[in-house]
């Protein structure tokens, strides 16, 4: 007890308290101070010192596109060539799934071959489900695609599917090759790592602008953005998976006399395939996550439907298209996961030798598709699902929202204003009031405290980037929204995680919910929130909390579950009550893991924040979004990098403190 009291007033805690007090004083009075002293620099970074990075980037981009010439070809020709390369397969798939094959140009075009009928596509996915796993998966696939047809989302869904079908192989192949290169050459790995870190922290919107600039508005731009967004995890997973192949297997390959190439493609990559399939699944899910965002630069399909209805506040239509994306996401997620599992034994595979018996599904699907094609000329309902039989729930949702807003308007409003006035706004005012110079000092000090002078230097440099580009005020709004959301997500998430770790049934239910939450594209969260709370900080906060909740729960549960059972037994034998077991043994030992969960929560919150700019926040996300609408490359990239800077500062500090915590507990 004495020791505890002693620690309460230790030197560090006094220092922290003093810092907090100074910060509060500065935050509250700096504005008056700067007025009284007529020193504007206190609250605003002097304009004369600002970096002109924004304009430099814009100018460089302009030069690239208009003047850059590599001798054999210009930069513009290079991007056009790349676009052409992606466009060809995309057009093919789009023709097969959605538009059909055309003859002639523009409005004079005549359809010479219709697209695959809805019956044929559904049969294909059912066959794929059965091939990958079993009838249960086949049923799921069938129901999902039937849903798309019945609810009138078929056409849009096929456009979206076409873009996924193109983006995924490009993302997987690119990621695989980069990952292999990083595995082979250490210097490449070292060079690639910071780029990957940046790619995963910089918001997508930021690189939409340059892509728009290079490739123009249209599906190709959208595909390029999707591929860039979905590739980094594949790179990482490839390198990790190859490193995880047992040394003996590599030795065996060498001893069999494999050449370098044989070793890679015949031994290492096939052995790592189960792990690589996790990467493929990631690429698929991230591509789907991009569907709505990509529609901002020209992707059609479901994403465009969601975005368009969100813009005209047509909740019903937006929700329907959003649910269709979710259905597609769930179906593709399960399918790709099933493909990752090892399937039938070898005997099954080769026993039957005739073509018909070896490829029953392929044959069936082929015959059915041709039959549908022929029958489609005579019966329209075979070619496309009849409109008369379509069901729409749009009006239902509209009515529901209307009735909620009529009956519960006051209650919702009360909750909203209570949260805003007692919690969110005071935090916003406090953070927003901190003068940049003091904030800079605090960040550097915190970096030094958690991870020594190296971290301190890194944090100071990143913070300087934000400050010197005149983004301090907006960055603080981002920090406030992110901080508030993370606090709430943690307060909700960690207890759920603790509870589900200790209760098996709860664990299973929570697991299903989290899995579903994580398959939802981030955009979808905005729809119900805007329905109920309209635009503003509060709506943004709720959407961010929903999106970022999953890791807080998951890591907390995982941390508690992986505490060494011997320690628990030691606690029980020492006569701990259940409560003591939790608070004295489980919780402290799980703390490093929980910290990592909070870290993930922050990362997800930051990426969601940019999207919530659509519902009217005034942070860095809005800055990026404005840049996008104005096609201002420099502005978008700088604001995007500022968000990445915040993410990296938070990530490094938390990682450093989690590491020192592990060391203290001897878990490292």
């Amino acid at each position, binding site marked *: 007890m004495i020791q505890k009291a002693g620690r309460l007033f230790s030197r560090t805690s006094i220092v922290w308290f003093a810092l907090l007090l100074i910060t509060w004083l500065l935050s509250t009075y700096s504005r008056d101070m700067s007025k009284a002293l007529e020193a504007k620099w206190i609250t605003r970074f002097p304009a004369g010192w600002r970096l002109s990075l924004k304009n430099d980037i814009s100018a460089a981009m302009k030069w690239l596109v208009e003047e850059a010439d590599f001798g054999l070809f210009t930069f513009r020709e290079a991007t056009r060539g790349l676009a052409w390369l992606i466009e060809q397969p995309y057009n093919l798939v789009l023709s097969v799934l959605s538009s059909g094959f055309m003859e002639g140009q523009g409005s004079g075009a005549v359809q010479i071959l219709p697209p695959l009928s809805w019956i044929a596509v559904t049969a294909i996915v059912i066959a794929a489900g059965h091939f990958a796993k079993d009838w249960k998966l086949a049923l799921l696939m069938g129901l999902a695609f039937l849903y798309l047809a019945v609810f009138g989302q078929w056409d849009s869904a096929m456009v979206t599917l076409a873009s996924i079908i193109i983006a995924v192989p490009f993302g997987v192949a690119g990621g695989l090759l980069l990952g292999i290169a990083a595995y082979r050459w250490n210097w490449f790995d070292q060079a690639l790592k910071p780029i990957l870190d940046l790619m995963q922290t910089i918001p997508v919107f930021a690189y939409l602008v340059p892509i728009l600039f290079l490739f123009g508005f249209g599906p190709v731009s959208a595909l390029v953005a999707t591929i860039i967004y979905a590739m980094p995890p594949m790179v990482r997973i490839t390198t990790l998976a190859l490193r995880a192949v*047992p040394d*003996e*297997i590599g*030795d*065996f390959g*060498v*001893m*069999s*006399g*494999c*050449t370098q190439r*044989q070793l890679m493609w*015949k*031994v290492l990559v*096939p*052995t790592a*395939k189960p792990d690589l399939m996790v990467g493929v699944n990631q690429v698929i899910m991230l591509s789907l996550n991009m569907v709505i965002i990509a529609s901002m630069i020209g992707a059609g399909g479901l994403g465009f439907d969601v975005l368009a209805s969100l813009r005209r506040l047509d909740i019903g239509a937006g929700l329907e298209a959003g649910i269709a994306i979710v259905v597609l996401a769930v179906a593709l997620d399960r399918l790709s996961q099933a493909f990752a599992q*090892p399937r039938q*034994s*070898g*005997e099954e*595979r*080769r026993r039957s030798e005739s073509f018909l018996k070896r490829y029953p599904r392929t044959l069936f699907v082929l015959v059915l598709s041709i039959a549908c094609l022929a029958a489609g000329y005579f019966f329209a309902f075979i070619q496309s699902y009849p409109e008369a039989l379509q069901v729409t729930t749009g009006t239902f949702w509209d009515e529901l929202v209307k009735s909620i807003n009529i009956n519960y308007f006051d209650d919702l409003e009360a909750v909203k204003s209570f949260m805003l006035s007692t919690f969110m706004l005071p935090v916003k005012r406090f953070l927003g009031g901190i003068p940049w110079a003091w904030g800079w000092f605090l960040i550097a000090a915190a970096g030094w405290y958690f991870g020594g002078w190296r971290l301190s230097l890194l944090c100071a440099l990143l913070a300087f980037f934000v400050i010197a580009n005149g983004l301090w005020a907006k960055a603080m709004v981002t920090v406030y929204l992110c901080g508030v959301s993370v606090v709430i997500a943690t307060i909700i998430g960690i207890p759920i995680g603790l509870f589900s770790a200790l209760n098996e049934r709860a664990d299973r239910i929570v697991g299903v919910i989290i899995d579903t939450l994580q398959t939802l594209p981030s955009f979808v969260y905005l729809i119900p929130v805007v329905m109920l709370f309209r635009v503003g900080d509060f709506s943004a906060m709720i959407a961010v909390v929903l999106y970022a909740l999953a890791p807080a729960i998951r890591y907390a549960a995982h941390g508690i579950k992986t505490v060494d059972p011997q320690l628990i037994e030691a606690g029980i034998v020492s006569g701990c009550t259940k409560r003591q077991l939790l608070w004295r043994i489980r919780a402290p030992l799980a703390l490093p893991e929980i910290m990592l969960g909070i870290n993930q929560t922050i990362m997800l919150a930051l990426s969601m924040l940019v999207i919530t700019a659509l519902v009217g926040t005034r942070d860095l996300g809005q800055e990026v979004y404005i840049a996008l609408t104005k096609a201002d490359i420099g502005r978008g990239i700088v604001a995007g990098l500022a968000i990445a800077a915040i993410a990296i500062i938070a990530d490094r500090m938390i990682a450093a403190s989690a590491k020192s915590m592990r060391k203290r507990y001897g878990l490292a």
Partner: protein
Amino acid sequence: MEKSVKLSCRHVWKLFGHGAKEFLAKSGDVPSLQELQNADLIGAVRDANIEVLEGEIFVIMGLSGSGKSTLVRCLSRLVEPTAGELLFEGVDLRKMSERELIEIRRHKLGMVFQHFALLPHLTVLDNVAFPLDVQGLDKASCEAKARQVIDLVGLSGRELNYPRELSGGQQQRVGIARSLAVEPELWFLDEPFSALDPLIRREMQDEFLRLQSMLHKTIVFITHDFDEAIRLADRIAIMKDGEIIQIATPEELVMNPATDYVGEFTKHIPRAKVLTVGSVMSKEIIEGTETVSVSARIEEIADKVESAGKPMSVVDADGKPVGSIRPSTIIDVLVGRKVIS
């Protein structure tokens, strides 16, 4: 008959740590363990000298961390030795080009691994055919050859199974079949039975001896199990801290361990199973109708000598008497007393 040397390794070193090569070049002769430690280097293999003879089973035995795995990886050139010479059929493996090395591996070397190292995505048949496939052999002859070796190790009927569908013992049979598919002249086995449970291990050792009696390969066999070494070896090299302490036949090891460390291992070995009549008999030649062979193991003739109740004549392969053996000598061997011959 003098056997030719298949593989010889002279003054082979493998040091881990910064500046290992320079350190070795500078220190000239054999630096001690202490000197290495002072230079912040780890001596995984120190000054190894081995000659593996054509057709023998050469066992390298050592506990974990003794450097035996590193040594075999040096011999097979999976690990680049820091210094030394490696002569395979008189040609220096270290001076070969990448291409030549690949050719040698494709046709003359085979290796079996502790954890089997089977490719999970291939069936038994495809796994065994893999080294042939890598050579670029056509599919039909790959398959025919693979079936032949699968049959040899007694796995016929499991060709189309995947490794994950087999037991540990069966998986290692696949590993053995695969390494034999190219008909290697030099066969490395890196602790091939260590991951198996004791009963299966014994069965596999018998299987291994059966195969060797048919194939007469030159074998380098790694193990940490001294009983296994005694059972299988023509000659054994004992390693400790990266150094080879003694190279000898099992019998010599048991009779004359070079150090106390080797003695620790041999102490618990039932000597009747290792020693031959020749190593314990007395030179005194006696007459007798009943004889025992000079090369027989004590275990095999114990009953016969004991029931005779008197010294017995020992004869060589031609039936010429070379000495005699008393029942008391047999008892000395059996209870582990020092044998005075």
